[in-house]
């Protein structure tokens, strides 16, 4: 994992001091709420329906036990004893008091954390594959590059007032777990024919009211030139992105309006100029320094499969069920990637108590080389666990309510904060997620249904990624009442697609029934071994429409 040196620490400290001054000016009334707004937004502090909300960055979702304990401490001391993991690998606190926020930021800084650029129209926290450094299908660990992007984009003097927020995702594996094609920039680590490392660049993806998939604008950017190339894209966007209409301000609209060809032409011209004048090529020494932080931990030489693990799988059905969904293949023999579900049946997706955070910190230290990951699906991951420890770990996770065996299943629902917190919402997301989760509580049934991603957004801003849900649910406003629209067939992996809307929306009393009808319809028509997504791809929407709305 990356560790701050004195330079990184100095920058974060300067920012904390600055914000403390700014909060003091606000509290004393020297600046108005309007003047304060851009300042707090540079520091992850939102004003929500009932209170301020603080969003803390977990850069590319990687953190350790020391940091997790601090997150727990903050939940206990400054909030109501819990935190909420978001769809962008961040954590949010819903009830901080304004005058205490500078103290929270100071506490975070002691463990190399911050809330910088988690809001505002700037380059946001860069996201990545939660299995980075552990996945079997990985080409190279993408996180060193995420860290370089984090540094380059922090306090960027030219790009802190963009037309709109800007999200970058980087992945280094064949299977895309970072949804790069629905980001403003998606970068995929790749090797060229000479075996050199570089990145394929996609630009202009995004969800929101006009969902679009990113367009490939460069096959190969050599790794040392990544930042220079990103700088070129940012400059084109900063100068040409629309500023006349909030809803057309994301880079996807620019790319859509001028076309990928023209975008490539503009970016290439800037890129050429930056290479001539900007000197943003990273020195090899600096690249090596950062790569070094992400060297793999000291895995023990183990057999591919641990015998005790195999025995437990045969002997304990509950454990086997958990292993089936919550464990992923590790690249090191004898190790496994363990997912901790933050979606216990009927609970709020992504919520975690301080007590659970402390427990996860202990377990990470004991079983996972002190590494933790936050996932964009609002769960946690312990990336490096020995197979021989899995049973013991599972028991401990079970004690903490963190072993719900539902990763990737119907009750592993992504939901945005919705009308319970968010002032943009049309409808509540969380209670609906809870209701659907309760409806599918029976685990045998969930396992029978198989992989199913249900994603819920409370409004068209799509923070719950409903467009790329196998079943997507969108809160809409109909005559002042909460309604929900269903779409089917979305996906956020390497075959990214946007779901199609089924038909008229449902009110809060019938939406869960409708979801169940959709699932039952699938069960009735699926072929052998066919997943929900594959079935929708084969049969289209018609059978589902018929089941929901009749044939008339």
């Amino acid at each position: 994992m990356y560790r701050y040196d004195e330079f990184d620490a100095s920058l974060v400290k300067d920012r904390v001091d600055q914000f403390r001054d700014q909060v003091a000016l606000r509290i004393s009334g020297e600046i108005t709420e309007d003047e304060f707004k851009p300042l707090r937004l540079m520091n992850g502090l939102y004003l929500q329906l009932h209170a301020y909300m603080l969003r803390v960055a977990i850069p590319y979702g990687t953190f350790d036990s020391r940091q997790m304990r601090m997150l727990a401490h903050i939940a206990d001391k400054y909030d109501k004893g819990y935190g909420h993991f978001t769809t962008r690998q961040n954590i949010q606190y819903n009830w901080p008091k304004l005058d205490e926020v500078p103290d929270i930021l100071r506490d975070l800084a002691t463990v190399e954390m911050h809330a910088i650029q988690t809001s505002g129209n700037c380059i946001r926290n860069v996201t990545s594959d939660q299995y980075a450094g552990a996945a079997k299908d990985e080409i190279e660990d993408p996180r060193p590059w995420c860290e370089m992007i984090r540094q380059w984009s922090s306090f960027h003097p030219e790009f802190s007032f963009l037309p709109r927020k800007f999200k970058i995702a980087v992945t280094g594996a064949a299977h895309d777990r970072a949804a790069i094609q629905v980001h403003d920039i998606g970068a995929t680590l790749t090797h060229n024919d000479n075996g050199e490392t570089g990145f394929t660049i996609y630009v202009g993806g995004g969800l929101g009211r006009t969902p679009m998939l990113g367009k490939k604008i460069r096959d190969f950017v050599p790794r040392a030139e990544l930042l220079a190339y990103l700088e070129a894209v940012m400059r084109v966007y900063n100068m040409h992105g629309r500023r006349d209409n909030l809803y057309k301000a994301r880079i996807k609209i620019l790319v859509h309006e001028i076309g990928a060809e023209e975008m490539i032409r503009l970016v290439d011209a800037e890129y050429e100029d930056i290479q001539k004048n900007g000197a943003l090529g990273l020195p090899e020494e600096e690249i090596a320094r950062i790569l070094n932080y992400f060297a793999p931990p000291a895995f023990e030489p183990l057999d591919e499969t641990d015998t005790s693990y195999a025995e437990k799988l045969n002997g304990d059905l509950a454990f086997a069920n958990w292993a089936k969904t919550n464990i992923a293949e590790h690249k090191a023999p004898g190790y496994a990637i363990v997912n901790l579900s933050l979606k216990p049946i009927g609970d709020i997706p992504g919520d975690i108590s301080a007590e659970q955070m402390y427990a996860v910190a202990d377990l990470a230290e004991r079983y996972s080389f002190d590494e933790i990951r936050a996932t964009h699906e609002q769960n946690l991951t312990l990336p490096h666990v020995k197979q021989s420890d899995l049973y013991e770990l599972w028991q401990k996770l079970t004690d903490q309510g963190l072993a719900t065996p539902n990763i990737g299943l119907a009750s592993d629902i992504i939901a945005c904060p919705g009308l319970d917190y968010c002032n943009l919402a049309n409808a509540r997301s969380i209670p609906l997620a809870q209701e659907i989760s309760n409806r599918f509580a029976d685990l045998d049934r969930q396992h029978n249904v198989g992989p199913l991603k249900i994603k819920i957004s409370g409004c068209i801003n799509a923070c719950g990624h409903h467009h790329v849900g196998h079943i997507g649910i969108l809160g809409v406003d109909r005559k002042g009442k909460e309604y929900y629209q269903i779409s089917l067939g979305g996906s956020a992996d390497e075959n990214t697609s946007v779901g199609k809307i089924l038909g008229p929306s449902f009110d809060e009393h019938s939406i869960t029934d409708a979801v169940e009808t959709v699932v039952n319809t699938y069960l009735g028509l699926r072929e052998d071994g066919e997943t929900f997504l594959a079935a929708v791809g084969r049969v289209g929407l018609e059978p589902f429409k018929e089941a929901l709305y009749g044939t008339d």
Partner: protein
Amino acid sequence: MALIKNGAFADDTWIDANDNEALTDQATVVSLHRWQSETDVLKSRNAPLGLRLDAGESPEAIADDIDQFDLIKLNFPAFKDGRAYSYARMLRQRYGYTRELRATGNVLRSQLQFMHRVGFDAFEVDERITPEVYAEEVSRLHEVYQPSVDDEHPVFEKRVKK
């Protein structure tokens, strides 16, 4: 409104001419439109000439005429409109503009360091921003992560030197 130039209060000796106003022989700032429609007249004038660029008016339009101007004002119609950050950097870095580059419009104290970093050396500010405030704000962050057009060495360079 006050003018801070190279860190100190300065008198504004420039006249901002609108597009119809007759020009005097005093130092005068004109719009891009006027520059483009009266280029020859303005070039043959015998007094310092300045140029106003609003957001949306890229300096690309004057790339070949940079030497004509002793002052370029880049306007921030709203603090959120960050186009002029790119314009400033292009003027300094790409087109080699070395004279006064002034930020006008919605210039907030929290943005002074960014503006300074992309090449502004003069700022039209409200009365709350004094040279003392300016000095404090412009060195808020003691380190920088990226090269720009100021003299700061980004940390990756410092690290390699160490």
